């Protein structure tokens, strides 16, 4: 039971990172500024690399090879939250998603760095240090553009409204929540959401953006149990194109 709970946790973390990593990579060559092009490309490389390390851990727990897991599943077999699969949209949406997701991701890895499952604690401590660059990047840009011009503020505000219900889907209740807490593997989605909300409130308070009352927001759940938007399957098709033509290709 403990093992099943651990695997569910690892799959959703790795799937979130792989899918958002892929979305970030779609900014390569398309960024609004060279600096942002490089930033999103680097974060893509970090996230895909980190997902690989977690798929590797799953492999050691008896799951298939990382490449098979990444490239051979259909959308319904993925456990990422819907937030990460949404198309990049314009830069304002990507930036807001980057803030909302990466803030949660950083706190999650911070919690995991004291996990009772030692291989995960070791890896999480490492990943946490890398994610510091991602959250610093998001916070800096949100502060700048969230206080800049009427257009930048309006754009970010609109994207924030769209993204918030999906962001709450990051914390979709897990059937294994109590087992994970009991065995000190992970502090749980409820604790994570609480810490995340406080952090997001703090960052947004430094800007001219406003947050909707958490209580009236309707979280978009389903991602963790394989229910996805129409956007995930085309992403997977594109991501796995080379692998499906030639599984032994090296590139």
């Amino acid at each position: 039971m403990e093992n099943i709970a651990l695997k569910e946790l690892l799959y959703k973390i790795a799937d979130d990172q792989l899918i958002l990593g892929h979305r970030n990579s779609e900014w390569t060559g398309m960024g609004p500024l060279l600096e942002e092009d490089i930033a999103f490309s680097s974060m893509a490389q970090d996230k895909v690399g980190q997902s690989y390390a977690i798929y590797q851990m799953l492999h050691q727990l008896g799951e298939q090879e990382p490449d098979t897991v990444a490239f051979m599943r259909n959308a319904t077999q993925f456990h990422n939250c819907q937030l990460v699969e949404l198309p990049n949209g314009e830069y304002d949406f990507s930036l807001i998603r980057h803030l909302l997701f990466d803030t949660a991701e950083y706190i999650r890895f911070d919690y995991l760095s004291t996990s009772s499952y030692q291989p995960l604690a070791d890896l999480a401590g490492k990943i946490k240090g890398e994610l510091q660059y991602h959250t610093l990047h998001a916070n800096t840009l949100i502060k700048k553009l969230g206080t800049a011009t009427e257009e930048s503020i309006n754009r970010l505000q609109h994207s924030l409204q769209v993204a918030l219900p999906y962001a709450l889907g990051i914390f979709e209740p897990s059937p294994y929540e109590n087992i994970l807490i009991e065995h000190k593997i992970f502090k749980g989605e409820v604790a994570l959401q609480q810490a995340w909300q406080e952090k997001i409130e703090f960052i947004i308070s430094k800007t001219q953006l406003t947050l909707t009352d958490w209580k009236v927001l309707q979280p978009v759940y389903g991602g963790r149990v394989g229910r996805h938007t129409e956007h995930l399957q085309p992403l997977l098709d594109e991501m796995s194109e080379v692998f499906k033509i030639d599984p032994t290709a090296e590139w």
Partner: protein
Amino acid sequence: MEIDIEKVWKILEEVKDPEIPVLSLVDLGVITKVENQNQNLYIEITPTFVGCPALDFMKQEVEEKLNQHGFIKHEVKVSFEKPWNSDKISEKGKQALKQFGLAPPISAELFTDISVLEHVICPRCNNNNTELKNPFGPTLCRSIHYCNDCKEAFEQFKPLQ
């Protein structure tokens, strides 16, 4: 063959970072264990960044170097048991980075906010009249800066906790 661990460390100093050819993997701090396990040489390496694409290449280089020196029975494993941070770069390694034109990382403990990267010391003129251009650079481990005195861009090996 008797395994001399000290000698193995010396040999490993010959393996350089594929992107920074003046820096050995030993000075970079990515070799975390060298052990004699029943006359088999056991070595652990760990990546600077988890997503570092050079890791497989480094592992291969280590294996080839061991073979060249006659250590045929060996195992090289990637591990996160002793994760890398930028303070693991040796003093010698930091000097090598600087000579190569890369600013060595500031102490990882001091890296608490992006503003710490605003005035990194320029590896050319040693002044800190510099500015941060981008915390992300051409590789995962480098950031981009500009020196107002030299009027030239430079890169820093990023601090990482």
